């Protein structure tokens, strides 16, 4: 008997049966509720992408979809005894890191692990999705943006997530560190979170999403983060996939930038089984958009970064810098699209993707995609893939530096450009160390 695409889909969707029924019975007319119903219909229409789909050409989902996942109730998720300090990657262990902390376990908010520092007045709010009414006006600012059937499944069934809102002229002084923990020590876990960041005019905030897995069972986290950046606002959003060896991850980040705003996404992938990151930015006039990425892969880790910067209005600037180091049998996919619409004259858009292959068995697929309808623009892109510079290596060795250390020095230098863009010292230092340790044993 062969498994058909329909079989795969019904196996994957089986745990959602009850939820689906509930969604189909929704009568509320607000945007979120209606969005759920629309997502439910989309799920029925769509199927999981295969490698025949151009956008998924190098990322085969079989390894994910061949598993049977379970959803965990809030009760079960929160009853497990998780001591955050057991995770290397729980950065708030470090007392020098002063931040708000939000913890989600298997898609459910864990109050006892979280701590939100005092916020002045009601102009800034850090909330959870489950505590936010579906008719809250914040949701009206966001459009539905579906990358694949995973987006629809998330939209229909996400259990929780964070909702951060800043009204005009606000500064969130401390960063928000969000930890998404998949506890797969007992079961094959599937968790889904849906996050919103809404930042008013001339306001600033930094949000760091951290992905952690406990346990060895196959586990998947499916996420969407939507960001609305007001005029003159500055939002930094980071995704750190550092401690999740058994994790599958499908996640997308969508940012809408009002005129004269600045948005930075930094995506660092150090561990995981299969990770697909979609990043889509729609930029207004006089905007700045930065897309920084670093993937450092070994064993059979597969990381696929698909990014889109869509310049819709004139006079904006975007800069994308993705760097990768591939060891073992790892595979990285980079696809960077730059759209410059006809109205977007005087756009400056730059993209670079640089890779170092440490092993002959590692695979890299990189593809820039520029679609430019305006005529007065400056765009450039470049991709490089190569081994570590043998001459540089020899120079260092000839000065007494052992080969592994020499490699590590060169790779740190390679990664530094991306890490330097991270302004949170504890985070940058942790990553620098992590990279150093990783490279000196590889």
């Amino acid at each position, binding site marked *: 008997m062969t498994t058909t695409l329909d079989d795969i889909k019904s196996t994957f969707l089986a745990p959602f049966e009850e939820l689906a029924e509930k969604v189909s019975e929704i009568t509320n007319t607000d945007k979120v509720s209606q969005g759920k119903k629309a997502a439910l219909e989309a799920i029925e229409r769509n199927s999981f992408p295969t490698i025949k789909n151009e956008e998924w050409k190098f990322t085969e989902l079989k390894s994910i979809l061949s598993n049977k996942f379970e959803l965990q109730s809030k009760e079960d998720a929160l009853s497990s005894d998780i001591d955050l300090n057991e995770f290397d990657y729980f950065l708030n262990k470090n007392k020098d890191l002063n931040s708000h902390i939000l913890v989600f376990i298997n898609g459910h908010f864990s109050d006892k692990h979280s701590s939100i520092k005092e916020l002045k007045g009601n102009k800034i709010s850090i909330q959870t999705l489950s505590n936010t009414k579906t008719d809250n006006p914040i949701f009206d600012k966001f459009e539905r943006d579906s990358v694949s059937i995973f987006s629809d499944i998330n939209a229909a069934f996400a259990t929780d997530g964070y909702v951060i809102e800043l009204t005009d002229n606000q500064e969130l002084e401390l960063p928000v560190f969000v930890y998404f923990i998949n506890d797969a020590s007992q079961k094959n876990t599937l968790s889904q979170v849906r996050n919103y960041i809404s930042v008013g005019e001339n306001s600033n905030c930094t949000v760091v999403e951290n992905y952690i897995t406990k346990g060895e069972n196959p586990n998947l986290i499916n996420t969407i983060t939507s960001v609305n950046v007001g005029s003159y606002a500055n939002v930094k959003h980071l995704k750190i996939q550092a401690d999740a060896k058994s994790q599958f991850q499908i996640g997308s980040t969508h940012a809408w930038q009002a005129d004269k705003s600045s948005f930075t996404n930094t995506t660092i992938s150090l561990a995981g089984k299969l990770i697909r990151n979609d990043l889509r930015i729609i930029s207004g006039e006089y905007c700045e958009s930065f897309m920084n990425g670093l993937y450092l892969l070994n064993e059979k880790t597969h990381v696929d970064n698909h990014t889109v910067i869509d310049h819709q209005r004139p006079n904006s600037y975007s800069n994308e810098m993705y760097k990768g180091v591939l060891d073992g049998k790892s595979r990285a996919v980079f696809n960077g699209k730059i759209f410059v619409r006809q109205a977007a004259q005087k756009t400056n858009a730059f993209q670079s993707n640089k890779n170092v292959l440490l092993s002959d068995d590692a695979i890299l697929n990189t593809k820039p995609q520029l679609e430019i309808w305006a005529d007065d623009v400056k765009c450039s892109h470049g991709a490089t893939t190569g081994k570590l510079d043998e001459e540089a290596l*020899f120079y260092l060795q000839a000065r*007494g530096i052992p080969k592994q250390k020499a490699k590590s020095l060169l790779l740190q230098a390679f990664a530094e450009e991306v890490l330097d863009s991270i302004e949170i010292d504890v985070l940058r230092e942790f990553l620098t160390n992590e990279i150093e340790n990783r490279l000196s044993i590889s």
Partner: protein
Amino acid sequence: MLNINGLQASIDTDAGAKEILKGLNLEVKAGEVHAIMGPNGSGKSTLASVLAGREEYEVTGGKVDFEGKDLLELAPEERAGEGIFLAFQYPIEIPGVSNATFMKTAVNEIRKYNEKEELDAVSFLKLMKSKAAEMEMDSSLLTRALNEGFSGGEKKRNEIFQLAMLEPKLAILDETDSGLDIDALKIVANGVNRFKNKDNAVIVVTHYQRLLDYIVPDFVHVLYQGRIVKSGTKELALELEAKGYDWIKEEVNSITSK
């Protein structure tokens, strides 16, 4: 200190293996300065690279003994640990690694290799500053990325600065004089002369007699077609300067054609 016996080395090229060193003999004792001269392409840089442990070159025959150890068995970093130093003809630029970080790592790795305690940050900085001053190096060169954007002369000076920092037993200088104006040449030569003592040795690879006015060799060798074909004292360098290499080539060719 160094004993090279019948050394043969080749390199893989698109047209097959190319033999470069064809049975080279050389002995260097502590306290000596040897100059190796010879026309372009005769194998001088290859010899220097093989001694430093560059894997690109395959050693196909011969032996190299350094202080009682089989040098050819050692990895490049072990050779450096044992006290071999190569000042590169073309020092490479390494973006992202600062000169100071590089130097500190190198100094301490070599100390570790020799089971010496590592230098702490303060003593290292002090040492680095004094050595840089001796080489009349602008302190900005220390914080900048290794050799990146350095002028030709700055790169060469940086090589001799590293020599001074690492204090090896055997320094091999591969055309350290090329591209230097006379002032820079003097600074470089003074650096080498400060380093030089009765317990260490220097091999100076050069094209020109000019450098040998400042770093005075005990022996001068002519390397041609992968062999040392003539050895003498410093007068040989003067003779080469005056007459060029043609007479040597003729001598060699008449012997080989016999």
